């Protein structure tokens, strides 16, 4: 009777202490547990969806404003700034749910944090340097003017600007996306980053209006589509576990 109960216990509880293992079984346990640890975390895709949507909307609205010459009344890129609030809430909530911390996740989080800081620096650079440069050249006693070669229009005084600044944003968009894609072996993000680099090259040859379209394509391929795929995967795995 005791033997029967012991056998039953062994069957019901495969991971218990007393059972002797062969070397082959040891190897199987190691392989199986390493696989389980690897597959333990599924990105919910919410952050990718959030940033993919926000940057796509901002880029498309910017393009539409320039194309049809109107202004919506506020800088559409402010929505990117406001998207930081839900992102913080999402990060805190997801952080609480995580039961296992992986080295690769920490590295990826750091890369995204550095990306955020770099984007902020680029925005700062874009907004500050034209005025600073203007003051410097004014102090030097000269000014920048737009001169029409055909002389049909008078010269116009202009403020210094960074040519095709949006191309620099596109380089930055690709960086954390490619790191995440390669580290997580997530092909949609690798593909998205490649598309983003392609958009960077295109944007070097286009006006700032069409750079916005390049930005929208980059945001859709880098974050929106991978976000949809991640979300679907997460919901599927959640449904399978119920």
């Amino acid at each position, binding site marked *: 009777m005791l033997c029967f109960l012991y056998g039953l216990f062994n069957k019901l*509880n*495969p*991971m*218990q*202490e007393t*059972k002797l*293992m062969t*070397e*082959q*079984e*040891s*190897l199987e*346990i*190691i392989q*199986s*547990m*390493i696989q*389980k*640890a*690897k597959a*333990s975390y599924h990105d919910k895709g919410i952050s990718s969806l959030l940033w993919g949507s926000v940057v796509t909307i901002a880029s498309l609205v910017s393009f539409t404003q320039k194309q049809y010459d109107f202004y919506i009344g506020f800088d559409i890129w402010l929505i990117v700034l406001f998207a930081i609030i839900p992102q913080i809430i999402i990060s805190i909530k997801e952080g*609480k749910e995580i*039961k*296992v*911390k*992986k*080295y690769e996740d*920490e590295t990826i989080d750091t890369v995204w944090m550095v990306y955020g800081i770099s984007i902020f620096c680029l925005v700062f650079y874009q907004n500050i340097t034209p005025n600073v440069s203007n003051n410097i050249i004014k102090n030097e006693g000269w000014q920048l003017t737009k001169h029409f070669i055909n002389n049909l229009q008078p010269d116009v005084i202009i403020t210094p600007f960074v040519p095709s600044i949006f191309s620099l944003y596109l380089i930055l968009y690709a960086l954390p996306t490619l790191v995440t894609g390669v580290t997580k072996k997530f092909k949609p993000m690798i593909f998205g980053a490649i598309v983003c680099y392609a958009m960077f090259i295109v944007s070097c040859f286009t006006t700032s209006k069409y750079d916005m379209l390049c930005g929208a394509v980059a945001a859709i391929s880098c974050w929106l589509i991978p976000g949809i795929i991640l979300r679907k995967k997460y919901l599927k795995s959640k449904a399978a576990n119920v």
Partner: protein
Amino acid sequence: MFKDLDPILHSQLRLAVMSLLIGVKEAEFTFIREKTNSTAGNLSVQVNKLKDAGYIDVAKKFKDNYPLTTCKITKQGIDAFELYVKNLQGYLKVK
């Protein structure tokens, strides 16, 4: 001549715990229990054995007023695990 396999690691549940922890920075007790499909009592005993051997660090704290136990592999644990795998490979090659 074969080297003996480390008796601390040559046990199903302890080996499973170490295999889980080898690839992660740290893991919660509930995560390990879930992945190893073990009972809390049994896992607790094995975790303590690994802790006493110096193979893992166990930290107990509170999260949202609930006790939270996290486990982390130590340098000694990594070395022991690597040696175990090396010795295991020796056995398997001959067979």
